[in-house]
């Protein structure tokens, strides 16, 4: 098992570059294949409507299989994005595989037998999916599964962070504070996201990006900004707090 803290750091280092450069997501996928006992990986960044935006993959075959799901509207990653739940298919020749009459034959033809898809999400914010491909059938081990969930969490936060950064400013290496020590946001960050949605009249995703951007600009952690918002000492719409 890779130690979660180290896996997280490695992943963040891989992503410490502009995410709109599709190569950054490719590098992340290559890193995931090196760190976990899987043979291929692909990441799709979508909007809430599951319209595919940006993507990355460990190799051209996985890129094609990932792309195919969003073209066909079927497959585990597609399903994970829409349902918000992981889709874990240890054997594609089983009943799950039959649900995808066009996708499954394509995966089997590429010599993959198992596929595991994890949604990229932060509560109600849905950002896409990570797909892991295995040549041999069988379930993911408990530790690999935990690592895969860490990959999904880190990728989701990184997408938000990257969107929050000014694309014209030089890219800093991601500071450790981004993960607030635990790898996940605290309750206040999610509460503040909801409050900022109303203040700004934007979606949850946009609200979280704006919250993150405010933290970057002010040199604060996202936790600190969230606490100020929840305590009603700060409004992201520039209004005065009552």
């Amino acid at each position: 098992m890779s130690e979660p803290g180290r896996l997280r750091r490695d992943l963040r280092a891989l992503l410490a570059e502009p995410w709109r450069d599709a190569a950054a997501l490719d590098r992340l996928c290559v890193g995931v294949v090196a760190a976990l006992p899987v043979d291929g990986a692909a990441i799709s960044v979508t909007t809430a409507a599951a319209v595919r935006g940006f993507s990355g993959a460990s190799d051209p075959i996985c890129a094609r299989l990932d792309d195919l799901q969003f073209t066909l509207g079927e497959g585990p990653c597609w399903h994970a994005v829409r349902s918000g739940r992981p889709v874990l298919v240890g054997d594609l020749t089983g009943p799950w595989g039959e649900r995808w009459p066009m996708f499954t034959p394509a995966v089997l033809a590429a010599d993959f037998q198992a596929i595991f898809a994890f949604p990229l999400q932060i509560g109600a914010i849905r950002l896409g999916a990570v797909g892991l491909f295995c040549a041999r059938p069988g379930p993911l081990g408990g530790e690999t599964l935990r690592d895969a969930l860490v990959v999904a969490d880190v990728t989701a936060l990184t997408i938000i962070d990257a969107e929050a950064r000014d694309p014209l400013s030089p890219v800093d290496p991601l500071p450790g504070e981004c993960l607030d020590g635990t790898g996940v946001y605290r309750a206040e960050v999610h509460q503040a996201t909801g409050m900022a949605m109303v203040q700004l009249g934007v979606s949850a995703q946009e609200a979280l990006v704006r919250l993150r951007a405010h933290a970057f600009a002010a040199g604060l952690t996202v936790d600190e900004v969230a606490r100020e918002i929840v305590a009603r000492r700060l409004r992201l719409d520039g209004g005065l707090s009552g």
Partner: protein
Amino acid sequence: MGQEQELSEAFVTLADSLVADYDVADLLHRLAHHCVNLLDVAAAGLLLADAHGTLQVVATSSETSRLLELFQLQHDQGPCLDCFRSGTAVTVPDVALAADRWPIFVAGTQAAGYRSVHALPMRLRDDVIGTLNLFGAGPGPLADADARVGQALADVATIAILQERAIRHHEILAEQLQHALTSRIVIEQAKGVLAERGGLHMDQAFNRLRRHARNTNTRLTDLARGVVDGTVDSTAVLALQPRRGPSDPVPQDL
């Protein structure tokens, strides 16, 4: 309600969840409330470990920010972390005596007005998935009977969360845990929307959310997601004139 009746109701509620289409967030919230009503404790909360091995709050008997903070402090130190790591109950009859061991946690506990704290493991066979955390207003140990009832509630909740009958692989366990944790985040986001729109404290926002879920027979997580997605009109959730059934308690935050 008498204690015996409350106890029966607690287990019936939890047992229902095993057969019906239930909402894990709502179930755990009920459990936290049952703990406060049944046991000699002032506050209760359930924490589940996420994929990072960090304990995350999933339900509390009161949604005040101060209580939530006490649970969040235990990311780094406190009886829950020790209980989670050891898989055995940790009871602290007098938190003042544990200041050396967990300085930040003890300071927070005292500031919130609690004097004793107990953590019971949520265990499935060899796996510890989280802890049930109980805070007492006064000092003193957890009575044997309370410890047994508390552990029984924690055990039934564990089974309900993980739907043990279906568990054959680690996959399902991790999937269910992840789902419970995601539900909690959606609820926090919805609390923020309602708090801002209605000018409410977070605990009041939660109570409105929960009351509306009950009145409309909607799953708490689904309602919360609707509030965040904008598919549910939050004006209706915030409204003070609910359709209330005869058995529903009057909300206490109003």
